[in-house]
């Protein structure tokens, strides 16, 4: 995992720094409209010095990862004051936004993760909640008409573009349609002073549409995997055995086929994560939610390399952690895997 992690950080770092354009001139966005007598060169130089862009790339990389803090607060043996022991990724410390110097990225990311993670988790939960019974059911009724209809419907959901679905949801359920759900943000300030229940209800009603749209993307895919997996398990010998001992179909599925089928599906948890971060760009922009996807997207439009570096690395690391966690879960749940032996993926 650690080598992969290093690979990822390196790739992200190099990719971002390979972006065209001079980072220093690019970051002048916030200060756009340079007045006449300003020494552009001097300011650019100041910017470069502040963001350590003058250092060779490999040192910048080490600074970014953490142990070698090049800033004035860095360790004494690097010429700093020694005020900070850790920096960079290792300390969840990404420096300031370029477009808005003085705004630290880490707390901003933390704040937005508090929005995106529950949202994505809810979406994922919803997706699993619907996909597992649906997938299992359509596997059980494989070859019959109704299961075919469900499988077809899953394909439909799979093919729905999320931006379109989001717009349709707003059109139908928003104020111009049935006016059932609010279509902006995640909470209304009107309930700020209200009781916990009111606020929870408020957040819930705000979250319904974005969560459903987010879930729709992974739902179909997940359900199809569950279906395939259950189908495969249903053909297995132990299911035949269980049926021969008088277990009902439902019992067989619940007690034998499903647990076995879900094992591989758990591993998808890790791979679904990056898709959720990517998908949240669209959903968060359409629903006006200040989440990590929108933050990354805005940083991208500003060409704020620091923000992009931070968000991309973070989501890659999250994914990796997700993969690792699902490996771990697999190992925990599957008695065939012993501790210490790595499952071959």
């Amino acid at each position: 995992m650690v080598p992969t992690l290093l690979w990822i950080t390196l790739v992200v770092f190099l990719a971002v720094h390979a972006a065209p354009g001079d980072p220093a001139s690019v970051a002048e966005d916030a200060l756009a409209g340079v007045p006449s007598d300003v020494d552009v060169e001097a300011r650019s130089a100041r910017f470069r010095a502040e963001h350590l862009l003058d250092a060779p790339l490999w040192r910048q990389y080490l600074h970014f990862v953490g142990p070698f803090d090049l800033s004035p607060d860095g360790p004494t043996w690097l010429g700093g004051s020694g005020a900070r022991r850790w920096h960079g990724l290792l300390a969840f410390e990404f420096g300031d936004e370029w477009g808005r110097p003085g705004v630290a990225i880490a707390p901003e990311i933390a704040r937005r993760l508090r929005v995106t993670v529950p949202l994505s988790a809810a979406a994922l939960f919803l997706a699993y909640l619907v996909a597992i019974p649906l997938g299992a059911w359509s596997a059980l009724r494989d070859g019959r008409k109704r299961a075919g209809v469900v499988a077809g419907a899953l394909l439909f959901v799979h093919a729905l573009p999320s931006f379109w679905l989001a717009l349709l949801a707003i059109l139908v359920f928003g104020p111009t349609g049935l006016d059932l759900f609010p279509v902006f943000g995640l909470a209304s300030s009107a309930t700020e002073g209200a009781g916990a229940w009111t606020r929870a209800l408020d957040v819930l009603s705000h979250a319904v549409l974005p969560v459903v749209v987010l879930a729709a993307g992974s739902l179909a895919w997940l359900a199809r995997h569950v279906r395939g997996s259950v189908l495969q398990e249903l053909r297995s010998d132990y299911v035949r055995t269980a049926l021969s001992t008088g277990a009902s179909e439902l019992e067989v599925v619940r007690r034998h086929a499903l647990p076995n089928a879900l094992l591989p599906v758990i591993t998808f948890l890790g791979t679904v994560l990056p898709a959720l971060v990517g998908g949240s760009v669209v959903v968060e922009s359409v629903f006006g939610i200040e989440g990590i996807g929108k933050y990354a997207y805005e940083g991208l439009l500003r060409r704020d390399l620091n923000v992009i570096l931070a968000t991309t690395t973070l989501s890659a690391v999250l994914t990796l952690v997700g993969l690792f966690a699902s490996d771990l879960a697999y190992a925990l749940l599957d008695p065939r895997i012993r501790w210490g032996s790595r499952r071959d993926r």
Partner: protein
Amino acid sequence: MTVDARRNPRVERFLARRGGRIGIWTLAILGTLAAWAPFLANDRPYVLVAADRGSLERARDELAPLAESLARIAHAAEDAGNAASPGARESIADEARGIEARLGVLETATGAAALAELRRALSASRAGSARSADELVTAARTVRDAFADGRLVPPTVRTFPLFASLDALDVFCALLPLAGLAAWSLRRRLGLGRALLVACGSAVALAAIVGIFAEKAPFAAPGALKAAVARGVLQVDQAWFPPIPFGYAETNLAEAWRPPTWLPAGRLDAEGRSPSTRDVSAPSAGRPAARYGEPAIESSWRHVLGTDALGRDVAARTLWGGRISLTIGVLAALLLSAIGALLGAAAGFLGGVADTLVSRTIEVVLCFPAFFLVLCAIAWTDPDVVPVPFAIVLVIAAVGWTSTARLVRAESLRVAASDHVLAARALGLHPARVLVRHVLPNAIGPALVAFGFAAGGAIGVESSLAFLGLGAQVPLPSWGGLVGEARGADQAWAWIAPGMLVFLAVLAWVLVAEAAREALDPRAAVEPSP
């Protein structure tokens, strides 16, 4: 059971699936609509029988400036003392061509007599004498003044503006559906692959011929022809317009945001506002007038899908939008399948370092939020360096090849261990040759399935990009871009249809891929019991 050598059992099995058939048909229809968009929605008629006064007037007006510029060049050359310098000669020839073209136009209308002097002066000046260049200027002015009183009578001619406006790529696209049809009907005789090759080859050849010999288009500007009719400089005897007589870039601001005209909301009130303009205090651009060749302003068929913010016909834009979306989907899927198949096959077949390298790379790539990477790359691409559509194709392929690679790797691991490959290797064949001749053909099955899913996925990604405003360039529409431009709940008509087509296209590809998977995967068939 008889086995027909020309019948590919996999193709037959694929066609036996309803999903696959529906998918193929949907794709064929969408593709044909997109490819034939120029013939279905265009502001130029197929056939135009008309007298063009405008071109006559322009020819007359431009004679003098052309003559003057020729004179200027001639003088400059003379001053420099090198009338024969190639640069100057070329410029002179350029100007002379311009004059001659205008003379030709005038002569068809008025007879050669009035222009004889001008012709004489022109040939004299081409001989290189500066004085005759001055004479030419005088003669051109005389001609201009002589025709000032509107004695110009333009002849009525038959032209084909729509066809003239097509370029080689348009022609190729338009031929593709026919090529597909031809290939399908020839598949029994030639085999599907060869039939496709022949059909597409002839399409390319035809398109190339058209590209080489095509004439330059009159009325190249969007709506220019209709505007000319409105100004009265074009007198039309007869014109056949396409079913949707609107260009995809043809604006009509008086009809901005008009809902579909067959809806009550699409009717106009006395001042030309549609009920969608709810604030009556907003000034109206006046009651819009139907331009030449268009359905009447009140007709239900005028804008079946309404108009956008610039009054452009959404139906026309949606038709044209498919060109970008579908093409990018197929190209990106082709590229990523190629990359994935090659890398996957190499990894599975060569093993060792190659396998480790590819597998690690896949692992790393999988960890990235792919869509976000695509966003970054597109947002930062300088369109002058890489055109946006190509950038999209490249980037989608760059992040999307992993699933194909994994599938092909697994398959080629299996194939590489199989007897005939082992035998081939034992015979001492070069590994690359074994790879190409034995491993790839066998591992191509899963790659084909992945291709279908990838094409659908690429259409989705391209649409999302365009929706976020990072897609094609003005004024070219793409489905996602159309949705993104309109997006408001109040203009649902402008984004529902293009979004629906994205959905249909993705769905069709997924259906095809699904059917292909079932057709290729022997496990999907029910095995007879022992």
